[in-house]
Each structure stands twice: as structure tokens, then as C-alpha cells.
């Protein structure tokens, strides 16, 4: 398989868990380093990663889509904040002012536009956009179903339902487009409110039908099976889980609000956690599900996880040791953010998967050149086995 991949020389991807470590570390960077210099680096690194590991299929567009959503959100946010906020000392310009009456919130729209409000709202918007971009890059490069496999057994079924629900949205859009086309081909102009019915009814009806057939299909293929005689175990486990949750709530309120000694709250909490853990373990045991594991954890995955871990640690260290370089707050007066080499390094480190992937691809390609005879012939066209 590896050789086959090499002969096609596409960038080999990483283990899902390694990707998970990477995305968590990237999100940590976005959350801890507020220095504006990090933002362009983060966006650049993420797009390099999303670009070099793009998979065929609609998920590969998640990065672009989420970045667009983030940018749109930022623009809206800046406009709203600039129109309503007036703190700060650097006036950029003054626009005509509109004072809303009290029943509309007593707001002052327009007027003095300050650089501080503009900068702060823009940075906050971009930080959220960067967070969305991390998510988008993760969704572009990983297979969501593989991520689900990492869930514990008793959660796997719920997780599957969530992915199906998510997959439903694009399906509905596709169905709507199809139906609209078909109705237009029966001579109907799809325009305005009256045309909603001809499109919406078949889409909804087929959506409902599809969910029923899907549920049927899952049912006949054994979804939701329990081990024989496990109904009682499951019922008790659920009761225990509920009890555990209540105990944890009681314990933490002891810890937070009462004057009882610390050990008392802590031990109540601990027993709650214990009950919950036992319940989850029991629940996992009555579900006979297994998972197919195809992925192998290789040295490259260690490297990616290591790089990502170091990046996150670096970001935290920077925030702790050198808060002046890691944070930025434009009030009361806007100033040029401090430049720090560490910030640049952390921003660039997010692109580690792209570099590692390129290195690995290069090695595979060289191996391929050295032993061309080892590379199997390209598989025949999509044919039927005889």
C-alpha cells in the first residue's frame, strides 16, 4: 500500500490522533497569543496545511468555507462596533450621527470613529476567524468518521447520529438543487415565494423518506444492538451515571459555596466521578461494537505530535514569561504591537504538518526511484473482478 501510494506520490497523511493533537495545539496558539503579528502567520500556515493535504470530496472545501465565514463575521463585527463604540483617543474621522430614541436602546450610531475600536474589533473578529480556520483545516484534512472512531464505545452511536445529521445538510442542498432543476424542466419559473412549495415539499418529503430508509437500513444492519441479557445492566448503568452526575454537582457546590472542609467536597466529587466512570465502563461493555483500525502510528506521527506539543508549550510559556509580547490591547491609545521572534516561530510552527508531509513525500519518492520495479502497476480502470 505504501509503495502504491509512493508511486502516485501524493502527500501521505498523518494518524487522526496526530491531527487531533495538532488542531488542539493550533487552537491553543490562537487563544494564548494575542499579538497581531501571529494572525497572518496562522492563516498562512493553516492554508498551507489544508492545501497540501486536501482530499477529494466536498470536505476539502471546509477550510475555504469556514475562512470565508470568519472574514464575513469580522467585517460585520467591525462595522457594528465602529458604529456604536466611541472609546479611544485616536479619531480616524467623524461621520454623521444618529441618536436612537430610548425605546430603541438609546444608542448613538455613527459619530466619532476611533482607531482603537476599529483595531480591537478587527482583532477579535480575526481571532475567531482563526479559530474557525483551525477547525476548517482539521475538517479538510481528516476524515470525520475516523475522528469518531476515537470516541469511547458507548458514545460512538451518538456520535454517528451526529455525523449523519451533519451529512444531511449538504444532501438537502443537493436535493433542493435537483428538485428545482426538475421543476424548471416542467416549465415552472422558480422565483419568489410561490415557488417555494414546489421545491420545498419534495425536498422535505424526500428528506423524511431518506431518514426513514436510513434508520431502517441502520436497524437491519445491526445498529443499536446490545449483548443478550444486558438490558438490566444498561438500565442500572444509566441510573448510576445520573447519580454520579448529581453527586458531582453536589460535591462541587460544597467546594465552591460551603464552608465545609476541602477534603469533604473533594471526596464527594471523587465518588461521583468514580460512579460515572463505572457507569460508562458498564455501558461500553454492553455495546458489542468493534472498530476497524486501519491507521498505524508511525514515527512521522510522533514527530507531528511532538512539534504540535512543543508549539503549544511554547505559546503558553511565552504568555507566562513575556506577557508584553504575547498580548495586545489597543486601549487607551493605539500603538504598534511589539515584534518578537518567538511569536513568528510559533505562528510558523503551525505549518509543521506541511513541512513534515513534504519531507516524507520526498523520501517516498526517492525510495520509489531507487526501486522502480517494486512499484506495482497502476490498478486497471474501475472494473469488475472476474
Amino acid at each position: 500500500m505504501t509503495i502504491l501510494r509512493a508511486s502516485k506520490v501524493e502527500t501521505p497523511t498523518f494518524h487522526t490522533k496526530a491531527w487531533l493533537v495538532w488542531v488542539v495545539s493550533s487552537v491553543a496558539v490562537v487563544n494564548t497569543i494575542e499579538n497581531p503579528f501571529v494572525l497572518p502567520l496562522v492563516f498562512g500556515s493553516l492554508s498551507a496545511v489544508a492545501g497540501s493535504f486536501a482530499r477529494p470530496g466536498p470536505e476539502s472545501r471546509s477550510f475555504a468555507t469556514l475562512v470565508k465565514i470568519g472574514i464575513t463575521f469580522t467585517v460585520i463585527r467591525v462595522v457594528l462596533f465602529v458604529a456604536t463604540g466611541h472609546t479611544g483617543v485616536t479619531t480616524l474621522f467623524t461621520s454623521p450621527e444618529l441618536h436612537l430614541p430610548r425605546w430603541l436602546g438609546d444608542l448613538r450610531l455613527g459619530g466619532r470613529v476611533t482607531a482603537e475600536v476599529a483595531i480591537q474589533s478587527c482583532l477579535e473578529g480575526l481571532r475567531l476567524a482563526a479559530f474557525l480556520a483551525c477547525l476548517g483545516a482539521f475538517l479538510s484534512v481528516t476524515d470525520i468518521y475516523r475522528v469518531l472512531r476515537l470516541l469511547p464505545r458507548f458514545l460512538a452511536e451518538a456520535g454517528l447520529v451526529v455525523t449523519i445529521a451533519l451529512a444531511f445538510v449538504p444532501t438537502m442542498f443537493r436535493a433542493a438543487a435537483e428538485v428545482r432543476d426538475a421543476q424548471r424542466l416542467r416549465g415552472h419559473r422558480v422565483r419568489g415565494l410561490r415557488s417555494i412549495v414546489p421545491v420545498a415539499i419534495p425536498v422535505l418529503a424526500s428528506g423524511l423518506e431518506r431518514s426513514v430508509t436510513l434508520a431502517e437500513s441502520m436497524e437491519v444492519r445491526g445498529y443499536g444492538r446490545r449483548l443478550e441479557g444486558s438490558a438490566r445492566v444498561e438500565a442500572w448503568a444509566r441510573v448510576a451515571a445520573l447519580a454520579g452526575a448529581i453527586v458531582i454537582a453536589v460535591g462541587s457546590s460544597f467546594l465552591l459555596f460551603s464552608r465545609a472542609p476541602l477534603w469533604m467536597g473533594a471526596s464527594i466529587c471523587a465518588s461521583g466521578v468514580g460512579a460515572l466512570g463505572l457507569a460508562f465502563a458498564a455501558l461500553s461493555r454492553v455495546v458489542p461494537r468493534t472498530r476497524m483500525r486501519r491507521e498505524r502510528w508511525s514515527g512521522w506521527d510522533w514527530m507531528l505530535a511532538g512539534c504540535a506539543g512543543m508549539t503549544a508549550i511554547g505559546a503558553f510559556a511565552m504568555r507566562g514569561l513575556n506577557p508584553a509580547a504575547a498580548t495586545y490591547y489597543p486601549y487607551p491609545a493605539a500603538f504598534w504591537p511589539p515584534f518578537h521572534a518567538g511569536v513568528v516561530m510559533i505562528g510558523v510552527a503551525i505549518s509543521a504538518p506541511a513541512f513534515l508531509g513534504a519531507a516524507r513525500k520526498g523520501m517516498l519518492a526517492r525510495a520509489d526511484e531507487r526501486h522502480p520495479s517494486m512499484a506495482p502497476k497502476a490498478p486497471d480502470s474501475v472494473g469488475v473482478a472476474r
Partner: protein
Amino acid sequence: MINVDRLTYSYPAADAPALRSCSLDVADGEFVLVAGASGTGKSTLLRAIVGLVPHFHGGRFAGRVTVFDRDTRHHPPRELAELLGFVPQDPESQSVVDRVEDEIVFTMENLGVPSITMRKRLEEVLDALGLSALRERSLATLSGGERQRVAIASVLAAQPRCLVLDEPTSQLDPLSAEELLGTLSRLNHDLGLGVVLAEHRLERVVHFADRMAVFDGDRIPISSGSVREVLRASPVVPPLVHLARKLGWDPLPLTVREGRELAAKIRPRLRSLPHVAPTVGDPIIEAKSVRVALGGREILRGVDLTVREGETLALVGRNGSGKSTLLRALVGLLRPHGGSVRIAGRRPSETAIEDLAREVAYLPQTPESILFRDSVSQEISFTLRGRARDPDPNAILEEFGLAAFADKPPRDLSAGERLRVAIAAVLAGDPRVVLLDEPTRGMDYGGKDDLAQRLKRWRGEGRAVVIVTHDVELVAQAATRVALMAEGEIVIEGDVHEILGSSPLFSSQMNKVFDEPSVLTVDDALLALGNSA
């Protein structure tokens, strides 16, 4: 070991039972074929076997169904999953996850098959169904036939004792259908895997089955017994058996080989039929080096096609060869990135689809997607209004034999009936060009004959028809020309007799039996034998 004992079942809120006192026994490792006209209860019977009836649908259920001694009233379908593998009619709606490999292991994961075994079985079924090249692909990018193979692979991987399949070949090209049925038969023989299969295109399956159960119109399986016995009186029969019954052959031939042996005696009487060239008019569809790319892959690689008024062109070719894409490009649903299309005197690239629709009718592959009204007659009126015609549906209902369904909601009809409604709905209002994508999927022989007659009539009226189909018998009955597509190109194109007559695989049963290019259908054969009965 499946035992259906005097099962009577009505869907909730239905006036008449879908199954009435129906009994069927399937021995361990048997291959049983379930046949019957559309809407007679084949699907309901299969659903009752796997337990979806009554567990999923509710309704009134009398009688007993046991599967390996488990009563389906007490065991929900998921508890039968390791015994029965069910492939429903519509493979598109059965897929749960998005990738081929994940979809195939889904059942095994639910059943708790150990990871290593799972891996081994995955490789086995990928090979058995010829899917290894598609293993990493997303299901959304596969063609209908490929998805059907994935659906079968996914139940097969769980190694059930018996497979229950509802029209598994309805979307497959003749060769893939043959391969699939061959695979099923091999599994049946080698592993003792039981098979219960519902099918309309009997010519594909009768010779594989050990036994056959046929529903007649009254929703009672008239008989289940050896295939030859049942076919003697069955209301639905493949063309060869139809001919044999007309000519009084005994025993009934099931395969082309048996047919040829019996036909050898009367072969000298057979004279070839004069070739009647259809009267054709001006070109009404002209496509010149059309290229279409979807999702980064080039699906059509320069297709040239001309269809004249009064012609019926059948577009055939293996699954995924670009037939449906070509049809969509012709009506302007897809923009070609090269080449040009003219249809009914207009260019789709410069015309609004709504205006094109006055002259062009298009039936998509999923006919359900166009039906949305509360009743069949409203569906017809909708199109008539859209084409600016008198919205009175009665003439059309009469013409298409749908008067009995006029007030029924289209979505409550069976798959075959719905298809007929959809065809009537897109054809109302006299379009000059008719494009049909798989118009016989799940349709019984009666419906097919009906459609073939209608296609001939339209031809006489000077309309141009393009059908995308895998159904050789329909092509033999109705087409005047055939274009074979492969890898996004038209490989060969010509007169129907020429193409079907020269192809060993893609030809009709009658053509194979008599080996005479002018004889494609049973009617042809009877005519050529001077036997007009």
C-alpha cells in the same frame, strides 16, 4: 431457514392488505426468486422476512414469520442482522457513512466482529465485488451501479446466512448485473449462502434460482415451486418463456442455450424481416464535441451526437460512463466547458431552462424528486400549466392508464407505479423532444410494454426520444438507434439491429436465441416465423 406462515399484513391507514395469507418456505442455502407485477407486495414480503414489517412500519400483522427459529414479532431486525443481510430497493438511501470502506465495515462494527477479522473480510468482499479500486472513494462520487455494489458488499461482509435483496440489479448495466448475479450464485453454491431475491427483469435471474414465488394481481403468491413449474402459469415471464409458451415448447427453456436447442428445429422456418428504415425528419438535437467536467474529473470527453425527429435513440454503456451526464448537458442542467449543444432549435447555454421546457421533457434518474403534489392529477396539471397548456389532466391520465390513481398521493404508490406517474408528469403537454433517464427501473413487463408502445407512437408523431437505459429488452422493443458510451465518449453508434445483432453481450434474448439481426423481440420472432398468434 425462513418460514412465512399465512401472513396477512396491512400498512397503517391502508384500506387493503398488502399481503393476504401469504406463505413461503425457504430452506437453508436455497436461492428463491420472488416475482410479480409492480405493487403486488414483493417488497412488503421481503420487509416482513427481515422484520422491518411490522417493527418499523406498524400496521396490522397476522400470521407468523420465523427466521432460523426466531419469531420476527419478538426479535427486532437488528437482532436478525447476523442471520440476514438485507439490500433494499434504493441503494442511495441505504448508505450510512460516506466512504466505501467505512460503509462496508459498518455492519461488522455493529455486530462486534474483531478488528482483524474485519480487515480480512473487507479485503475479501472488495475483491468479490470488484470494488478495490473504489475503496477510498466517497460514496457521493460513485455512480448508481457502483453504489449498488457497495450496498451488497456491506451486507455480505457481515457473513449472514441468507441475503434478502430487493431488485439488486435495477441500476446495473447488463454485464455488471450478470457479474453480480454470478457472484450471488457462486456464494450460494460454494458457501451455502441462502438468497431471496425480488426482481422484475426475470431474464437475468430465472436460471440461477432453485425456486420461484410469483404474486398474481390479488396479492397472493399463486405458487412457489420449481422455476419451470411456476413460469408455466406466471403472469410475468421473461421473453424467452413468453415465446416458448406461445409456441407450446415443453419443458420451458430458461437459458439462451436451452432456447437455442429448442429453436434449432424451427430455425429453417425463420425468415429475416425486411428492414424498415424509420422515417426521420430534421436534426433536433445536435451536440458537437461536448465536454463536461464534474468535481475535477472530466466526465464527457468530446461527445458528438445528432438525433433527428422521429428517432428513438438508446444511450447504453456501463455504469459511470457518462450517459446521465450527457442527458443533463443536453437539457442545460450542466454547462459544458467545451463544444456546443442545440436542442429544439435553441442553445441551452443561452436559454432559460423554463423556456426550453416547453419543447423538451426530461425524466431524471430519481423520479420521486419531481413529485410533490397531493394527487396524481394535480401533478399532471402542474406540468400542463408550466407548458402553458389547458390544465385538464383527464386526457393524460387516460392515455397513461393512471385514471385509477388520479386522486392518490403519488408518494404512497409503489416504486414502479411512481415511475409511471413521473413519466406522465414530465410528458404532459406534447414536448417535441423527450429525454428519459432509466425509465424502466423497477417497472414490470406490463409497464415496459406499455412504455415501448408509447415510444413507438411518439416516433410516429415525429418526436425525438433519447433513453438512457440498461434494459436491453426495452432497447430491442423501442429504439431505432443505439449509441454505446464508454469513458465519456460515444464508442459506437448505429441502427438498433446492427448494434444489438453484432454484440454478444449487449443483445436481447430473442436475438441470442435466433442469431438473426432482424429479430429482437418476441413479436419479431413470431412474425418472422409466420406465426402471428
